[in-house]
């Protein structure tokens, strides 16, 4: 409609909405006027008054119909019709309570699953940090290294240079996650904290509710400022909301820290996937980070940092400036920074927290819930088709008394809208209840994932969009049926007519095939993820998981200097070796798969010529004598470190297989030189590859140096034992106390526990996808059951006839089940084709599982078929109970 037309029609439309009675009155008056003129003319022609009236009425036709057509022609009654339809729709749904409940339940599940996943996407990836100001201008900062595919973190000196020179950045801050042992009396447990720059709380605009944040200068020095800000939950739960908390001390990693502040409620720090429990300044790095003092080491990368750009600065502009800073750093410090550039990442792509690993999982989840929604819609469509059959009579009557098809469509769409809105309301309720679900799923003491959902405007808008889509689908499906409606035939037929049966059956069968197909795809997807998780968890990490326990001793906190720490380590190992059940024990700076970062160093090897802009850099671990044997890491050639490999002996190293392949091209490196941090080491052994940072990583170059030759005071203690964790703990604690009563142990766990903690995000993903897969299967089964029951109910006559002609109950059961299985087979056929195409997209989520794994497909096939059988059983049983005599009589 043109704009100028609105000029004329808008007042009319408004009038017909607000004064419908007046409009009707005028219409009636107009038609009456016409009638009277006609009568007057007829009388003038010589008819009697009575005759004239009848003739005029006859000439005019049905006045009611004319009135209705005039109203329709106006179209302005759209809103009025809508309210009318709404009232009628509610009455209709109220009359069919079973139908309405089932349809709304299906939609609630479908839309609820979508809303929940969207809220997680929103809460985890797009608005990850509650209470933090201006997150839209916040970016993660990390280094990209020449020749490496994954980004690396920065060093503290690099970060300081970046902060000083980035004029386009409003603020730059550091928030590096570290685990820590929290000591309460004799009891020790692991908690998660952040090492932050002193400007942290000011930069993110979060202000402690008690006490203060950090002050400038508190991030300078080595272990110089043992102060801590604790989280609200920690204050509430552990300190019982003590109002006098400020100034009290809490031991973290056995170092007493003064509590200077309590963070506000609802602030969980800035790490996607974890709820941070405490914050300490960067100066406390050595207490929490295992590789020694790193604040002055440009080669020690451990800084997880962020910048907030100034308003109006684009990411590209900032990136340009930061790249220039990185180039300058390369020039100034070639030894450590050659080939390293610095990049900006959107928060939801942050390379150093769980965002990166959750992104593909959430992508799959979005696809999965879309499938669930489609299945739910197909179910509702099926229900509506059955009902449209029942309502055929009603629709025919409406058409007969003058409703246009458009008007019927409007009515059906309104009913669809009522269903969709109810389902959406229910769905949002469900999503609201589920928003913390991801957080509570893997309940691991002290180490729970924190994956909150957020229901905000964007999620609401998404839900509203889905709601309209569903309304359209659920309204149009039955509307298609009214096209086949033959008014006269439908009015004549009493019941059980055959109008449209064939086409309807095909639509319904099609919907079931569609559902089976989608559920099959989901089953395959869930099974693939499940198998992948199995593989990840059962994959050989390259070290023993069951018989090794890990803990640590708080010598730094007890004030041990380096010589005293060295003596202590030797004495403790000697004592432990003599204990029954303990096979061996060894210190190591870092335990695999934990938070703590390995040390890394630029390396040089005689036989390897790096590319001009390449600076080979390899991570390493400082380990004590017998470490490989204790951990169960096979020694491929050469020897392990011995007690004699100390600070006075020649510098040595053990390299792993991947490093041999890369830097010695597979040649035996024993006796060759390796340059680490400018010093030449002699390779004495080759260890097998193992997992270092994550279970799903591929093998990468790595090496070990003797702890005594690159000393850290607070290494972890690995113990190979045949005893239970409990008795090992008691035994170790006894020996430690025998040496020094003031020392405490860190939390003791098995390496299996360490592996489980590292794979908990995958566990969450698998749990969710499996749950949704189950939901989809259930919905599909309900759909199949509905179609089969309806088919049986419709064909009682045929079944009765078959029975009368000699078919027995078993024959009929087979008949029904085989029809159900035919539909299922059709669905599975499409499902296999679609799954083969789609599971390829999951490739990056799968670990050592082919997306086309035949076992998985077979399994999904079996589950789907079994489910279909179960869904058909009741209808089949009902069919077999057909009473031929009664059916034929009727």
């Amino acid at each position, binding site marked *: *409609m043109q704009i*100028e*037309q*609105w*000029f*004329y*029609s808008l007042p*009319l439309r408004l009038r017909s909405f607000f004064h419908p009675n007046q409009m009707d009155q*005028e*219409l009636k*008056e*107009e*038609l009456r*006027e*016409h009638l009277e*003129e*006609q009568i007057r003319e007829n009388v003038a022609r010589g008819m009697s008054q009575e005759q004239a009236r009848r003739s005029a009425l006859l*000439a*005019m*036709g*049905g006045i009611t*119909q*004319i009135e209705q*057509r*005039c109203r*329709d*022609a*106006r*179209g*302005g009654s759209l809103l009025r019709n809508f309210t009318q339809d709404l009232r009628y729709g509610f009455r209709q749904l109220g009359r069919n309570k079973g139908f309405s409940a089932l349809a709304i339940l299906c939609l609630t599940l479908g839309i609820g699953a979508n809303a929940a996943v969207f809220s997680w996407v929103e809460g985890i990836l797009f608005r990850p940090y509650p209470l933090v100001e201006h997150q839209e201008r916040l970016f993660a900062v990390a280094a990209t290294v020449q020749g490496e595919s994954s980004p690396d973190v920065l060093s503290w000196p690099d970060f300081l240079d970046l902060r000083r020179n980035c004029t386009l950045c409003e603020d730059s801050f550091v928030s590096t996650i570290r685990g820590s042992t929290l000591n309460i009396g004799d009891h020790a447990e692991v908690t998660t904290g952040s090492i932050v720059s002193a400007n942290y709380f000011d930069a993110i605009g979060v202000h402690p509710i008690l006490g203060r944040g950090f002050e400038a200068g508190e991030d300078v020095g080595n272990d110089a400022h043992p102060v801590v800000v604790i989280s609200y939950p920690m204050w509430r739960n552990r300190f019982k909301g003590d109002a006098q908390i400020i100034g009290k001390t809490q031991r973290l990693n056995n170092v007493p820290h003064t509590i200077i502040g309590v963070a506000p409620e609802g602030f969980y720090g800035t790490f996607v996937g974890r709820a941070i429990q405490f914050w300490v300044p960067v100066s406390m790095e050595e207490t929490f980070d295992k590789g020694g003092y790193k604040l002055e080491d440009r080669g020690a990368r451990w800084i997880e940092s962020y910048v907030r750009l100034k308003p109006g600065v684009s990411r590209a502009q900032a990136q340009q400036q930061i790249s220039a800073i990185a180039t300058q750093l390369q020039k100034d410090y070639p030894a450590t920074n050659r080939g390293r550039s610095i990049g900006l990442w959107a928060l939801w792509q942050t390379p150093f927290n769980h965002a990166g690993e959750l992104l593909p999982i959430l992508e799959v989840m979005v696809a999965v819930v879309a499938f669930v929604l489609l299945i739910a819609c197909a179910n509702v469509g099926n229900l509506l088709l059955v009902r449209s059959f029942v309502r055929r009579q009603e629709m025919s009557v409406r058409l007969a008394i003058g409703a246009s098809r458009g008007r019927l469509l409007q009515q059906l769409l309104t009913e669809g809208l009522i269903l969709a809105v109810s389902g959406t309301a229910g769905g949002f309720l469900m999503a609201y209840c589920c928003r913390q679900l991801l957080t509570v799923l893997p309940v691991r003491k002290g180490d729970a994932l924190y994956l909150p959902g957020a229901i905000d405007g964007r999620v609401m808008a998404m839900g509203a969009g889905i709601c309209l889509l569903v309304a359209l689908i659920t309204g149009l499906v039955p509307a298609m049926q009214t096209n086949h409606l033959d008014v006269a035939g439908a009015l004549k037929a009493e019941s059980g007519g055959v109008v449209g049966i064939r086409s309807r059956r095909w639509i319904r069968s099609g919907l079931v095939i569609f559902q089976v197909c989608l559920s099959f795809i989901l089953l395959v997807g869930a099974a693939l993820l499940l198998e992948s998780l199995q593989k990840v968890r059962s994959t050989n990490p390259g070290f023993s998981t069951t018989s090794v326990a890990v803990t640590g001793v708080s010598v730094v906190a007890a004030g041990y200097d380096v010589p005293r720490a060295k003596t202590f380590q030797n004495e403790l190992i000697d004592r432990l070796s003599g204990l029954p059940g303990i096979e061996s024990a060894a210190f190591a700076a870092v335990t695999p798969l934990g938070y703590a970062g390995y040390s890394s160093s630029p390396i040089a090897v005689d036989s390897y010529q790096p590319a001009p802009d390449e600076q080979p850099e390899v991570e390493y671990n400082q380990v004590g004598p017998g470490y490989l044997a204790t951990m169960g890491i096979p020694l491929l050639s050469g020897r392990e470190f011995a007690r004699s490999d100390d600070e006075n002996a020649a510098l040595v190293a053990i390299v792993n297989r991947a490093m041999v392949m890369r830097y010695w091209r597979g040649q035996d490196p024993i006796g060759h030189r390796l340059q680490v941090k400018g010093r030449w080491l002699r390779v004495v052994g080759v260890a097998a590859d193992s997992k270092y940072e994550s279970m799903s990583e591929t093998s990468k170059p790595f090496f070990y140096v003797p702890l005594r030759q690159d000393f850290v005071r607070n290494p972890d203690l690995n113990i190979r034992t045949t005893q239970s964790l409990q008795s090992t703990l008691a035994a170790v604690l006894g020996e430690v106390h025998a040496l020094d009563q003031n020392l405490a142990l860190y939390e003791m766990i098995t390496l299996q526990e360490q592996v489980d903690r590292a794979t908990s995000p995958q566990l969450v993903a698998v749990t969710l996808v499996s749950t949704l897969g189950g939901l989809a299967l259930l919905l599909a089964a309900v759909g199949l059951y509905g179609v089969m029951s309806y088919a049986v109910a419709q064909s009682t006559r045929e079944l009765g006839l078959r029975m009368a002609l000699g078919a027995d109950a078993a024959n009929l059961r087979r008949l029904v089940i085989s029809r159900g299985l035919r539909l299922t087979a059709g669905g599975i056929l499409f499902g296999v084709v679609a799954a083969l195409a789609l599971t390829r997209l999951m490739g990056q989520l799968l670990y050592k599982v082919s997306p086309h794994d035949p076992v998985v497909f077979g399994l999904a096939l079996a589950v789907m078929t079994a489910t279909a059988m179960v869904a058909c059983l009741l209808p089949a049983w009902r069919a077999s109970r057909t009473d031929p005599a009664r059916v034929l009589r009727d």
Partner: protein
Amino acid sequence: MSKPSDLVQGTLDMLILKIVALEPMNGWAISRRLQQISSDVLGVSDGSLYPALHKLEHRGWIRAQWKSSENNRRAKLYSLTPLGRKHLEKETANWNRVSTAISGIVQLKEA
């Protein structure tokens, strides 16, 4: 209540516009005028006339006003709007083009 099946779709609209273009008149008068000028050939029923009038009003081509007629009764008088006049001109030109073409074909003599 027969539909004007013989009427080319849209022709009724054009006829109505043409009639009210001459002077504002009510439904009854339009109905009479339609019968007169088309000599009952078109057979427009009143059942089609009124919905058509309401549709045209809704589209903004004609405008309705309640006026007292000469015998002191209220009557709904329809008149052409500027928008309607434009539409009528367009439709008339169109009609002339099409009807000339068609009558040309119809009058072709077999050779």
